[in-house]
């Protein structure tokens, strides 16, 4: 038997879900404050401290720690050997955790109410920037751990195919190194020296450009583990096989190569970039829809196979024949449903010309809650239900409650995000804490403001059931044995794959060239342009 690093995986996952639970409570407070129905609650100071904390906890803490924890489990159980360096995994955990605590102090005391995008020249307390950077440094150590685990495994198993789950995890680790470089440069060369007073002024246009480098692909960093679970856990839990292992590899490679050099779609409305580069990034943005469309097909085809094995007949009979008592199956279907519902909205955001209509309106908040808090997080929750018995050696406290909780999550997310989409189309700006505009528009907004409180309350209740279930599982009955080989097998398990689909050298090369064009040239242009800098501003 090999050491599965279960405690470090569990520690990471618990930090993730603790952050998640705190942030959900803040989320409900935010929708209540925004609605204007609770005048005694209203406070701009509190609201923006809250939404900054909520964004950081959900966007950076939940995701990073979840990905690290899931990665350790994946690396050990797919490669069937201990981590490359077990001690380092704890170092990564402690670095990331101390960064989180360092950032949390200014956030909770209102010294960093600049939202999770921290756009200068608004300035936060330096501890916020340093803490956030440490969180990223912790995640880099995790990346190293994943990459080295695969490299050493391949050295010892020449010619063998890297298991798909680990291939995807490594793709994500490499992609994250590429992705996080943008914000790391922004932190080290702009925000930290500027907040410490070593630099008088800052170029907000350059800062936004560097942040956009991270901002797009970070969402794929979050989404990757959800896709990995859909390809490599879901088919097995549904009682079937993965439709195609190779297609999974193709999707992972495309995500790695395509998702980083396209961040300018966040800058469509920005004055500091020219139309030509925005157009170039738009091309890649539509390209990155391809791996998602391939994933949807492969996952549905795998599920259809499972449904038919269970006796499902006809065009749709396989859907009812699925095992709707299995949390992973329920989450997978609901995740795809929310992905489809949210995907068309993404096409509008991504559109070079239509973006104008929705840019920075509440539509955007609706869109990313649906795909991120919906599709991505529901898979995180299902992965947690799947892993908990394996990591604790105990039964899950209640599978019935788990299934119920997942349904509630989807319902709550729809009730929360559909009104937000409508509000956006009705012109409501995002990132507001109240609606004091003297305009007839405000009356049109009111009913939707009410609906989102209901959505927020459903989600909080759902999150409570989730956390309770995990907590109770630590005291549940011990299992006689746990299977660590619950990874899905493909219909045709590949005996060998082309070298390019077993490693990443070629893809890193292509990405290097593309990044030089897509980000290198615009950044050099900005440096030459040398726009007059901005002084720091409070808020």
């Amino acid at each position, binding site marked *: 038997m090999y050491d599965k690093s279960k405690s470090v995986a569990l520690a990471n996952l618990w930090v993730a879900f603790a952050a998640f639970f705190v942030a959900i409570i803040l989320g409900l407070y935010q929708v209540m404050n925004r609605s204007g129905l609770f005048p005694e609650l209203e406070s701009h100071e509190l609201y923006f401290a809250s939404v900054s904390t909520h964004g950081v906890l959900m966007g950076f803490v939940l995701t990073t720690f979840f990905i690290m924890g899931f990665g350790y489990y994946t690396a050990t159980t797919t490669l069937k050997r201990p981590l490359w360096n077990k001690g380092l995994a704890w170092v990564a955990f402690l670095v990331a955790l101390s960064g989180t605590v360092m950032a949390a102090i200014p956030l909770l005391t209102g010294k960093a*109410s600049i939202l999770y995008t921290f756009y200068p020249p608004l300035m936060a307390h330096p501890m916020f920037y340093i803490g956030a950077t440490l969180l990223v440094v912790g995640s880099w150590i995790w990346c190293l751990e994943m990459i080295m685990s695969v490299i050493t495994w391949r050295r010892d198993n020449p010619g063998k195919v890297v298991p798909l789950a680990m291939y995807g995890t490594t793709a994500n680790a490499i992609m994250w190194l590429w992705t996080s470089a943008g914000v790391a440069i922004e932190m080290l060369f702009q925000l930290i020296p500027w907040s410490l007073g070593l630099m008088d002024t800052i170029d907000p246009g350059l800062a936004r450009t560097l942040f956009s480098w991270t901002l797009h692909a970070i969402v794929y960093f979050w989404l990757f583990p959800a896709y990995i679970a859909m390809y490599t856990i879901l088919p097995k839990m549904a009682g079937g096989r993965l439709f195609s292992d190779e297609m999974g590899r193709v999707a992972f490679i495309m995500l790695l190569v395509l998702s980083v050099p396209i961040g300018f779609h966040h800058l469509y409305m920005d*004055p500091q*970039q020219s139309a030509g580069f925005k157009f170039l990034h738009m091309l890649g943005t*539509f390209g990155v829809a*391809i791996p998602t469309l391939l994933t949807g097909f492969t996952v549905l085809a795998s599920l259809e196979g499972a449904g038919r094995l269970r006796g499902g007949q006809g065009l749709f009979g396989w859907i009812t024949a699925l095992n709707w008592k299995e949390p992973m199956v329920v989450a997978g279907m609901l995740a795809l449903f929310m992905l489809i519902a949210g995907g068309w909205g993404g096409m509008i955001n991504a559109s070079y010309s239509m973006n104008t209509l929705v840019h920075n*309106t509440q539509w955007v908040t609706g869109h990313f809650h649906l795909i991120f808090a919906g599709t991505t997080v529901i898979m995180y929750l299902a992965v947690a239900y799947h892993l908990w018995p394996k990591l604790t050696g105990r039964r899950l406290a209640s599978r019935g409650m788990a299934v119920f909780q997942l349904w509630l999550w989807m319902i709550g997310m729809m009730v929360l995000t559909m009104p937000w989409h409508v509000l956006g189309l009705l012109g409501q*700006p995002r*990132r507001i804490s109240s609606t004091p505009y003297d305009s007839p528009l405000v009356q049109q907004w009111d009913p939707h403001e009410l609906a989102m409180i209901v959505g927020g309350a459903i989600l909080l209740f759902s999150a409570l059931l989730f956390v309770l279930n995990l907590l109770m599982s630590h005291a549940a009955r011990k299992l006689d044995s746990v299977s660590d080989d619950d990874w899905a097998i493909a219909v045709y398990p590949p005996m060998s794959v082309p070298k390019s689909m077993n490693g990443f050298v070629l893809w890193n090369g292509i990405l290097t060239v593309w990044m030089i064009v897509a980000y290198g040239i615009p950044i050099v242009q900005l440096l030459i342009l040398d726009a007059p800098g901005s002084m720091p501003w409070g808020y």
Partner: protein
Amino acid sequence: MHIDPLEKKWMYVVGFMTAVMIGSMAYAAIMLNMHPPSNVETIDPKTLHLSGEFAEDNLGATTNPDGSVTVRMVAARYSFYPQMIEVPADTDVKFRITSPDVLHGVHVPFTNMSTMVVPGYVSEVNTRFSREGEAQFLCNEYCGLGHDYMWSKLKVVPKG
């Protein structure tokens, strides 16, 4: 490498869909000249109020010899200045906007008027308003605790 025939068909469908979307975007950009505001032009946020086109006296709407209108605005915490802009309907309007303090965003609901305002740069938006009446410029990027209060008025009057 094993590819199922059904999968292959789906790949063609995906390729086709992507091509159609990119194609329509390229058509709008190249043939209809529809581009997002991308005016790479710098300005010093510390001194822009002292002289030049963004000095207080020069702000507002001016009609150009060719009949089109240029609107100069400053986005500063927490309003857009001047706080009331009047433009004729169905006329080409060019907005030139900049910020002396932090990042802002501005849009007029139900129109194509939308841009980020980044200190150090001048944003330029070209558009036309077809619906007459009162509308609002709303700030859509967090700019501080008063962000909600950052808005101003636009009046679209009959052309003539």
